[in-house]
Structures are given as C-alpha cells and as structure tokens.
C-alpha cells in the first residue's frame, strides 16, 4: 500500500541529456473517475494508451535538486511549483451499488454511476417534467381566473329576481297588462288579428324610426315593450293616442299598435326587452 505522498518540485528540476525536461514521479495514469473515452484519446482507466516515449520521462528516478538557483532572485518573483495529487486507494461510495470496487488514484470521485444511461430517455424525461409543471401551472391559472370571474358575476338569487313570469291566460285578446320589471313598467298586449294587420300595413319607410312589426315581436299576437317613453321617460297611456296604440301625456308622443313612434317629440320606438315564451306553463318570461 503506497503511502499518501505529496511532493512539490520545480517544473524543471533537471534537463535530461536528450533535452527533455525531467519531471519525476508524475502520475501519468488515467484516473478512474475520468475513465471513458470522452474525446481525449487517452483510453480507459489505468495506464495511458498515449504514454509518452520512455526517453521523455523516467518513473521512479530520484529527483535531483540543483544546488544552483537559476531563477531570478528578486523578491517579487514567486516560485512556481506544481504538485502531484496524493495517491489514494479509497473505495468509492457507490462501489457496493455498481459492483465494481472503484478507487481513484487522484481522489477525483467516480461520477459514472450518476451519468444518464440513455441520453434520449433522459431528454424525454426532462421535457416531461417541464411540460408537467406547465400543465399544473396553466390549470391553476385557469382555475384562478375562472373563480375570479364567477365571483364578479351575479349570484343566483339576483338572477332569479331579475326575471318575471306572466301567465298568458291572464291577458284576454285585445287587452294590455302592465307589470313591473327591474323597476320599470313593461307593457304586454295580447293583440287581435285586426291590430296585427294594422301594424303590418304601415309603410315602414315613412316612420321616424323605421322598424318592421316582425322585428319587434316574437309572436305577432304578443307585444312586449318597456313602458318608458323614449323622449323623457314618462309612462305612456295604453289604448290612447291618434294611432290606436300608446300616448305619452307628458309631451304628446303618439305610438302605434306596434309601439313605434308616429308623432310627437320622442325620437325612437318603445324598447323591446329580452323575453321568451314558456309554452309548457303558458307563461311569458321577461328577462
């Protein structure tokens, strides 16, 4: 068992007769930890395959320490030494796992058990980990955003209050019903066929706010409108005015049987809210 030895010596303690610098006791063998051919061409661990010629070095020769100092003697000069690494024969921690007792002559650990066995598999696993993190992150962001948005949306009780239902059977033909919806009156008229014909016969081009009767109703016999005069917001009176529809008493706007402005200061037809028919329960759902 070689004792651990550390020697410092001058790079060129002596020059051989061949002109080669003589540097004895330098360990030229390839360390175990650096084994494997990674482009250096020095071969496997152990003795190098690219061992220099015998005349270039001599193993085991005693170094000659020159008595004459050829180096500069000024105080600013720092002498350079190079040291060989200590010789060790320590079993690698992974020796049991790998089955091969590995000892590094230089003390450099043997990393080969930690190296990836298969580079393509290693690459796929790495991308999989990155992608998995991306999937989790995107999922978390999506949940956060959708939770924030649903928090800002109207709750179910508010939505339920925002709708009203009116029974269709409660309104006989030719009658109006006024209901309150979101603080505003809503006119519902069950129109007769004569009134529908009258609304359709109007020349649309002659109107102030040209709108066909078909565009204002979902079913011709049911007319649903917001009961707010488009002039200054009064509530018009039903079955009044010169056109058989609605009449606003505030400033004298006349609306026809389709709720369109015909005369007076109002600029637009009566607004039609969102509504739908529930035929199973025979109800009009407003909102």
């Amino acid at each position, binding site marked *: 068992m070689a004792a651990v030895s550390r020697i410092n010596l001058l790079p060129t303690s002596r020059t051989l007769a061949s002109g080669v610098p003589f540097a004895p006791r330098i360990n030229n063998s390839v360390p175990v930890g650096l084994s494997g051919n990674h482009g250096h061409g020095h071969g496997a661990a152990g003795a190098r395959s690219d061992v220099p010629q015998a005349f270039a070095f001599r193993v085991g020769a005693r170094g000659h320490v020159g008595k004459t100092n050829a180096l500069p003697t000024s105080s600013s000069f720092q002498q350079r030494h190079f040291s060989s690494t200590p010789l060790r024969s320590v079993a690698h921690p992974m020796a049991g796992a790998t089955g091969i007792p590995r000892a590094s002559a230089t003390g450099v650990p043997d990393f080969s058990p930690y190296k990836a066995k298969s580079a393509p598999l290693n690459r796929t*696993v790495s*991308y999989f980990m990155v*992608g998995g993190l*991306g999937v989790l992150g*995107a*999922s978390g962001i*999506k*949940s956060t955003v959708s939770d924030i948005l649903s928090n800002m949306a109207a709750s179910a009780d508010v939505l339920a209050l925002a709708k009203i239902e009116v029974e269709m059977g409660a309104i006989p033909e030719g009658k109006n019903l006024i209901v309150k919806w979101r603080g505003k009156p809503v006119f519902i008229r069950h129109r007769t066929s004569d009134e529908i014909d009258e609304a359709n016969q109007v020349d649309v081009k002659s109107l102030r706010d040209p709108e066909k009767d078909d565009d204002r109703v979902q079913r011709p016999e049911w007319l649903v409108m917001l009961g707010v005069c488009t002039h200054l917001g009064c509530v018009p009176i039903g079955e009044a005015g010169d056109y058989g529809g609605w009449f606003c008493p505030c400033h004298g706007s006349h609306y026809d049987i389709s709720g369109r402005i015909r005369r007076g200061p109002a600029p637009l037809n009566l607004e039609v809210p969102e509504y739908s028919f529930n035929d199973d329960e025979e109800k009009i759902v407003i909102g």
Partner: protein
Amino acid sequence: MAGVHDLIYRTFFKRNSAFVATCFVGAFAFSISFDLATTGWWDYHNRGKQWKDIRSKYIQAGDADEE
C-alpha cells in the same frame, strides 16, 4: 422500449407549438379530471348525508307540495 420515449419526444416535445398545445390541452383535461376525482371522493366520503341521497325519504314522487 427505446422507441416509446423517442416517439413521445418526437410527437409532443420536439416542436414548441406541439409542446405548448399539449400543455394547454393537458391543463383542461387535468382540471376536469381533478374536479371529477375530488368531487367523487367527497360524495363517497359523505355518502348518505347529502340532500341528494336523502331526498327520496322526504319527497315522494308527485308530492310537489312538500317542497
């Protein structure tokens, strides 16, 4: 065996567009499946205690007034 991870790499990871698209689609699939799994576990853990489990004890079919 060697072909499987190589196929996965070439299909999902090699092109960035495919990688990002896979991440987003996977995020949707993950959140839906995670919700289903956790809801299923919750229902299993609280089985017999929730209204949908005991509703039949209190409301018979056609007995709408009880509601």
